[in-house]
């Protein structure tokens, strides 16, 4: 045995992974954390077993979905890979992913590693691993960052990647990544969207101002695709979107996504412009890695949105959609998607304010809730739940939704029951992070019960 300490760390990690699975824990950072204590060089050592490339995926929104899509694509192509697919995106979670796949000697080889990484942790990751490609999906400020912490994070990332053998894949529609080439001297590839029928030329009150990455002047937008992603230019230094290497075009959302990427037609069961960006990013990356188009298409067509990132249930003949909503951009996107969904519907929002949700819930006032024309989108009632049910109820009241159709029910099971009742055709279940898994469990149980009920009904149906 060459390295006893390494083997010990891997075994300890594997035992802990097994135990936490038994306990039903989703979180996977602890095994990595303990293994790193036993053998601090574990991530360096294991990540050296990657034969082809290590790909790091970071950004504020979409990194989990994008990296999961890419994992599907690479597996379709027949590659073996290490991937922290549960979204534990700090060093400990990444270490766990390597331990899980490794043999006890730490010598098993893999083609690729796909590492989803928290933005602020990128510099630390680069100290221990050597990614050849780094994808940044976008930078959005959320409610936790209003004091320039993001500018700081961007600088740290730029300093960390500089002078390394790295190529970057960046979002051309996000002005905050426009200066990466200039700042780092690296090869930067850009992806972005052509004009689409979902673009918006309006400046909404709540849209945060974006400043030029080169000179700091306030940017002017010709159009917005999604949130602050769009076509912009700087009136002072005349910089504009970087030229695209990969272009998304002919986007259709009805509501499932169809689009072309440089002529290649793709279909996906995912919905929403944010997912169109995730697809575009994953497909661009697949092209850079040389994946065959057929495999990319197949993988995108079969990729299902996972827990909370829009999951669909069928309960009492109604389509029930569960969505995680954690910032104004996500709430805007979810509300906008209601416009494309004809038919009468209920809305449900469970808002908690635990640490994982963000203690400060004032961001709900930064979303464009009043832009929804409630009569046209045919919302029958809005059920408000969670620890801050009052705040979310007020948000809809002051957005102009009739008071008498706003219901408050703090208990989640009863609240969801209310939201899937009545003659509506669909229900949209929105929730903040710590309410997500409870809501998901409740909906799964209701879905099963409803299915069993239907089976029974069918059995009793007289033959005709």
């Amino acid at each position: 045995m060459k390295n006893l300490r390494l083997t010990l760390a891997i075994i300890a990690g594997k035992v802990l992974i097994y135990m936490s699975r038994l306990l039903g824990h989703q979180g996977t950072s602890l095994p990595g954390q303990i293994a790193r204590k036993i053998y601090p060089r574990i991530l360096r050592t294991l990540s050296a077993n990657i034969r082809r490339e290590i790909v790091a995926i970071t950004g504020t929104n979409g990194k989990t979905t994008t990296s999961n899509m890419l994992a599907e694509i690479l597996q379709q192509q027949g590659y073996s890979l290490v991937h922290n697919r549960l979204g534990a995106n700090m060093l400990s979670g990444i270490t766990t992913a390597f331990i899980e796949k490794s043999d006890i000697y730490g010598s098993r080889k893999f083609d690729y590693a796909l590492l989803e990484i928290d933005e602020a942790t990128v510099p630390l990751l680069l100290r221990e691993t050597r990614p050849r490609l780094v994808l940044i999906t976008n930078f959005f400020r959320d409610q936790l960052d209003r004091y320039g912490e993001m500018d700081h994070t961007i600088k740290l990332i730029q300093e960390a990647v500089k002078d390394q053998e790295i190529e970057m894949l960046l979002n051309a529609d996000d002005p905050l990544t426009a200066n990466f080439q200039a700042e780092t001297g690296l090869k930067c590839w850009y992806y972005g969207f052509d004009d689409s029928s979902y673009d918006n030329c309006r400046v909404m009150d709540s849209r945060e101002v974006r400043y030029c990455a080169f000179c700091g002047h306030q940017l002017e937008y010709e159009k917005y695709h999604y949130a602050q992603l769009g076509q912009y230019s700087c009136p002072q230094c005349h910089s504009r979107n970087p030229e695209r290497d990969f272009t998304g075009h002919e986007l259709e959302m009805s509501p499932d996504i169809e689009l072309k990427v440089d002529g290649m037609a793709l279909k996906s069961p995912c919905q929403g412009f944010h997912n169109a960006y995730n697809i575009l990013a994953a497909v661009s990356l697949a092209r850079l890695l040389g994946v065959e188009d057929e495999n990319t298409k197949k993988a995108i067509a079969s990729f299902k949105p996972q827990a909370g990132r829009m999951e669909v249930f069928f309960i009492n003949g109604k389509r029930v959609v569960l969505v995680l909503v954690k910032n104004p951009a996500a709430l805007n996107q979810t509300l906008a998607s209601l416009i494309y969904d004809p038919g009468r519907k209920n809305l449900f929002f469970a808002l908690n304010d635990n640490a994982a949700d963000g203690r400060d819930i004032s961001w709900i006032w930064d979303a464009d809730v009043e832009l929804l024309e409630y009569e046209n989108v045919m919302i029958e009632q809005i059920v408000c739940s969670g620890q801050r049910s009052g705040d979310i109820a007020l948000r809809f009241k002051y957005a102009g939704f009739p008071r008498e159709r706003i219901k408050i029910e703090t208990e989640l099971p009863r609240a969801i029951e209310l939201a899937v009742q009545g003659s509506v055709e669909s229900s949209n279940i929105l929730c903040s992070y710590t309410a997500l898994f409870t809501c998901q469990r409740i909906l799964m149980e209701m879905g099963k019960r409803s299915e069993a009920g239907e089976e029974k009904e069918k059995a009793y149906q007289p033959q005709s």
Partner: protein
Amino acid sequence: MAHFHLVQLYPNLMNLYGDRGNLLCLQKRLEWYGHDSSIENINPGDSLDFEHIDLLFMGGGSEREQELVLQDLASKRDSLMKAVEEGLPVLCICGAYQLLGEYYRSHEGKEMQGLGLFSFFTQGLKERLTGNILIHTTLNGVEESVVGFENHGGRTYFIDKRLQPFGSVIKGFGNNGEDKKEGIRYKNLLGSYLHGPLLPKNPQVADFFIKAMAERKGFRIERILDDSLENYAHEQVKRKLMG
């Protein structure tokens, strides 16, 4: 039906933590009281005509943005103070509140002049005062509780001890976490660290401004609104804080 003209100062620069919810709230309540209103956005370089303003609102911003605002606001300082003396309703949240004082000293020791409308200063520290907050205040002769969320690195201290705070802190930090004072109150001006935003969950504070605005136009507001949701949200935060 009367028309109310609300002004938001520097919405592109000073607008944090859902601050615009305060104006949305005032607009809706005015509508429910049977009146009409408009919101004018004032950006750097725009002129400000205090003759035709019923209420002035400014929200929070980072240090960089506060400096830009101060450059513009300096020329409007005297007319602003005159309007405040005449009873103009003004609501300043967080960074905007800090600007009303004499100076702000950052945690690195950099000093930034304020408008100097009131004799207080703010000392910035790295460690932020963050969390839900409950204060007590007296509005139109009635003792009221006010809830919100605070998140500020600055500690504000009154130099002139005659200054009146907006309220006294029951749970949370307030101006500095030491003297139990929160915000400032002078005639119809309120400065406060409370966002949340402040007005929707505290309808009595919203109505304090609405009544003051109406009074300046020479009439009283008699209608009573259904505030059951507002009170529910208010109590929910209060219960959370009081355990």
